[in-house]
């Protein structure tokens, strides 16, 4: 298989994300806006904010994965790109993986870059910053991969947003738990290794499931 379909998938989903308004500013604004809402909902006591802040950002990350994934495969199904990719036998899983990873890069990864800023704002202790960044990066990867499976399964459903959420949320549970624990307990804790294992597992299983689901959606 030639690498060109993979490259074109990467480029097209990058430009899709860029074209939808303000480009990379959009997810940055989403996460910053969510963080700015936290003091309004919970009050501005410093101790409370530093304790719940990282958890709220986990929720924002999970939700952002579902918002952006709704259209990922639907657009390809409608403009025929999916049919073209399917003609190259065996590549569809890789293409699906590339597309989800690109979307993670565009709308999940900005949270990692913003973590020091938001963390400072919410008063998260500095020693938790690096575990939190690593956790958001890996946990986000897991969210986008399982969310991608849900999105691929419901690619031919018209308004699939809530359906994707219902399918994907139970699969988010392990990464969420291990990620939150890791931020609390630091990188020497077993939770860090468990989170790594979850990420690897999702990287191994989700692309195959997405491929099977996309093959079905194109029929």
């Amino acid at each position: 298989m030639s690498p060109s379909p993979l490259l074109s998938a990467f480029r097209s989903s990058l430009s899709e994300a860029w074209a939808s308004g303000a480009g990379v500013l959009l997810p940055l604004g989403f996460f910053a806006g969510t963080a700015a809402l936290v003091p309004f909902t919970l009050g501005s006591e410093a101790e409370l904010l530093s304790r719940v802040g990282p958890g709220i950002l986990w929720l924002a990350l999970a939700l952002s994965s579902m918002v952006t994934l709704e259209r990922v495969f639907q657009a390809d199904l409608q403009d025929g790109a999916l049919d073209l990719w399917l003609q190259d036998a065996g590549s569809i899983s890789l293409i699906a993986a590339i597309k989800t990873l690109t979307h993670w890069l565009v709308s999940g990864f900005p949270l990692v870059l913003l973590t020091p800023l938001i963390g400072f704002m919410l008063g998260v202790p500095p020693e938790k910053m690096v575990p939190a960044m690593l956790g958001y990066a890996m946990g986000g990867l897991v969210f986008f991969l399982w969310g991608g499976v849900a999105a691929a399964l419901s690619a031919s459903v018209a308004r699939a947003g809530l359906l994707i959420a219902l399918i994907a949320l139970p699969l988010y549970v392990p990464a969420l738990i291990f990620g939150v624990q890791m931020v609390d307990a630091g990188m020497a804790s077993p939770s860090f290794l468990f989170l790594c294992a979850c990420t690897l597992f999702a990287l191994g299983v989700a692309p195959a499931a997405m491929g099977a689901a996309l093959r079905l959606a194109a029929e």
Partner: protein
Amino acid sequence: MLSYLANPLRFMRFSRLAVPISFGLGAVLIGWSLYNGLLVVPPDERQGGDLMRAMFTHVPSAWLCMGLYAALAGASFVWYIWRHELADVAARAIAPIGAGYTALCFITGSIWGQKGWGAGWHNLILGDSRLMSVLVLFFLFLGYIALRAALETRQKAARAAAILAMVGIVNVPIIKVSVDMWQTTTIHQPSSVLSIGAPEPRADDEGMNPIYLQQLLWGFAGHSLFAAAMILMLMRSEVYTQQADRHLALKLEGS
């Protein structure tokens, strides 16, 4: 036996007899375990007094709902590999029954737990990892049903749902382990209602009072038979629906 029943005709003949028998037997066994559990056995003060009688529905349904999700994934696997129509009919029938039993397990667990932690859903849900993983399982069932309902053709719905069920079953052990770890290492109370002040092992352990265990086993047998009867009934109605569609098509073609 399964491959013998894979023939739809034989399946219909078998299930015509099996449904009323397992339905009746299941109802009798459930009734017997409930009668004993609610009226005969002495309440155990350490486990919430009379509230612990919820156990006789809670524990059998907890055993069943995990088993039903495994059965759902098994039927989906068989359908996905061998494309056997009855396997898909079975998967479709298992989903609502499984969702019902997870809901039953969660509700009875909540009732039982109410006293152990003092009233309040807060303690109840945050305190017990087992109830929490049942809740996650409930959402897995719901997602499966919703996906089936959302896709337009039968064939497509069956394939997508089968993929989802298989993805779900490889995740179920991970979810279980992660939720267990979450409960033991968080700041929330580590104790579970089953072991509050009790010197013996947890209530659903083999080491419990034999009077209770006996009723639990009767209840489990009864609920298994009852669930099987309901699944078979749903499968029969699905087969009849498909036959009716075919008859209608033939009739329209002839006229």
